[in-house]
């Protein structure tokens, strides 16, 4: 009975996550990819705001050409151009293709800090701007390539970017999925051994020991956990180490193995050089894909013999984009911290809950990558007119 009550928050959380996913992507809820328009109209006040943002960013974008033209012989217009570029970046980043969703999910899955979230957001936006500039500089300025060739280049970069997003998501899903499995499996033995320890305190340590090996076997996917030697002999060194450290308190052991499982990052390791390298892979995957708007602005500037002005405008646009992405990433990290604080109040179930959230975030990254790939295939954007 008590067990059921304990499970309820978890069930709620999972239900919440499923609900969130189904709201994000009506296609999942309706079982058909890119299905009929979503029917939830109750959030319409918000969409009014979004429509306003939508109109604003379109207006900013359309005014860019005038400012670029004017900046040819008017220094003041150049500063207006930079101001508009910044605002366009801020508003435009709310739209698709700026990695907000992927970055946020990545931060949630990886227990990243607020500061790292901001750094990763700025880094991905910077890479995005620089890639657009490099593509235009090489293809248009140096090679005099046509829009068709540039479109093809962007097209290839996009596929690589989305592919990398999927790979990063799958890797996280693998690591976090095993973490979830452990958190789930460990609930049962913990309660069993708890009862045993209460009935005969003298033998508590023996139970602990067996239980620990049993748990270790589960962690490593060795189902034959009756054979202790077998477990020792295989690829379970990490867990054995943990076991040696925590002889007195098996509960702690389970936590440690859940953190460090499947060669996943320990919280401490994440903050180190290796963690940054991992962060870099996410940033590159997200930032690789240049924004079509930036490409068009750069080529337009180039046509006016104002390539350098266009380059600065693109970098400022990236700065605006970074602010939006960082703000959303901060919300994501904050939400995770709230969840983690709640989880800490209840050891076993809390751990399970956090692992479930991480797995959910990893699933989202894979889904975003797949949808981006599919979305790209569905609407070929810049290639509509230029082949």
């Amino acid at each position, binding site marked *: 009975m008590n067990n059921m009550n304990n499970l309820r*928050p978890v069930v*709620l*959380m999972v*239900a*919440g*996550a499923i*609900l*969130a996913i189904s*709201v994000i*992507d*009506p*296609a999942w809820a309706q079982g058909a990819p890119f*299905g009929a*328009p*979503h*029917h939830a*109209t109750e*959030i*319409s006040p918000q*969409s009014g705001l*979004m*429509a306003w*943002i*939508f109109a604003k*960013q*379109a207006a900013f974008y*359309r005014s860019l*050409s005038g400012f670029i033209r004017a900046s040819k012989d008017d220094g003041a217009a150049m500063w207006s151009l930079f101001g508009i570029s910044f605002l366009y970046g801020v508003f435009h980043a*709310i*739209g*698709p293709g700026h990695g*907000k*969703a992927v970055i*946020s*999910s990545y931060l949630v899955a990886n227990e990243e800090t607020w500061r790292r979230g901001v750094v990763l957001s700025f880094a991905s936006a910077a890479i995005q701007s620089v890639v657009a500039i490099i593509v235009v500089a090489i293809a248009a300025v140096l090679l005099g390539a046509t*829009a068709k*060739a*540039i479109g093809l280049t962007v097209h290839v970069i996009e596929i690589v970017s989305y592919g990398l997003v999927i790979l990063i998501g799958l890797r996280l899903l693998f690591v976090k999925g095993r973490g979830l499995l452990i958190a789930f499996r460990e609930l049962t033995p913990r309660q069993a051994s708890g009862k045993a320890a209460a009935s005969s305190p003298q033998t508590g340590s023996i139970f602990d020991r067996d239980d620990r090996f049993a748990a270790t076997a589960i962690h490593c996917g060795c189902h034959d956990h009756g054979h202790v030697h077998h477990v020792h002999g295989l690829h379970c060194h990490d867990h054995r180490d943990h076991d040696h450290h925590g002889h007195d308190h098996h509960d702690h052991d389970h936590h440690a193995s859940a953190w460090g499982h499947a060669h996943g990052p320990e919280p401490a390791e994440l903050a180190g050089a290796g963690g940054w390298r991992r962060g870099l892979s996410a940033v590159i995957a997200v930032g690789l894909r240049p924004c079509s708007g930036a*490409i*068009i602005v750069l*080529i*337009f500037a*180039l*046509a006016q013999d104002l390539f350098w002005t266009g380059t600065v405008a693109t970098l400022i646009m990236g700065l605006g984009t970074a602010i939006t992405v960082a703000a*959303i990433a901060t*919300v994501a990290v904050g*939400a995770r911290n709230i*969840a983690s604080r*709640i989880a800490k109040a209840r050891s076993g179930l809390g751990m399970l809950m956090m692992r479930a*959230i991480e797995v959910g975030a990893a699933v989202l990254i894979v889904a975003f990558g797949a*949808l981006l790939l*599919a979305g790209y295939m*569905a*609407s070929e*954007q810049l*290639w*509509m*007119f*230029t*082949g």
Partner: protein
Amino acid sequence: MMNRTRSCCCALLLLFLSIARADAHPHVWVTLHSEILYSADGAMTSVRHAWTFDDMFSAYALQGISHAKKGQYTREELASLAEVNVTSLKEYDYFTYARADGKKLKFSDATDYWLEYKNAALTLHFTLPLKAPAAAKAMQVEIYDPTIFVDFEFAKDKPAALSGAPPQCLLTADLPHQPTPAEQLRLSQLDNAPLDASSTYGEIFANKILVKCP
């Protein structure tokens, strides 16, 4: 505990909503003028389009096109680009959808196409012949991009015209209507559930030509 869990759920839901909310953003603006052509026996035969691209997209499309005089492009210099344009557009049904008394009509490949460069903007001219000429009491021609990447809008001064139509036929041209809240919501979800070419969602943004021949 339950309340906190619930508020946590809400926080997560809001989080995912916030990261998922996004708007489609057109990167190509087209100002269009369309002419509906009729045969001598009063049947509609084709649609003749003149689409003017915005200056930024025009510059993008012109990138790498060799031309003799800076800032000027002749029809000949633009011939290969025009070819690429109509070939690419075929995949998108030329963004043109016609119905005769509610029944869908089919178009053949574009003919008579050329590009014109004037006032820093490209204008694509092309004619879309109907597979079979059609006569109807109510003829409807819509121009829109189902994926709303291209923003189409009738030219304010001269949106549409009839050519050779029976004298009793009356033409009206309607600009896209303001999206309703439900439509706006769908618009905001395009990031995660993009529209494909078979979607009719973009119809909201359709420029409608209606020809009534009583």
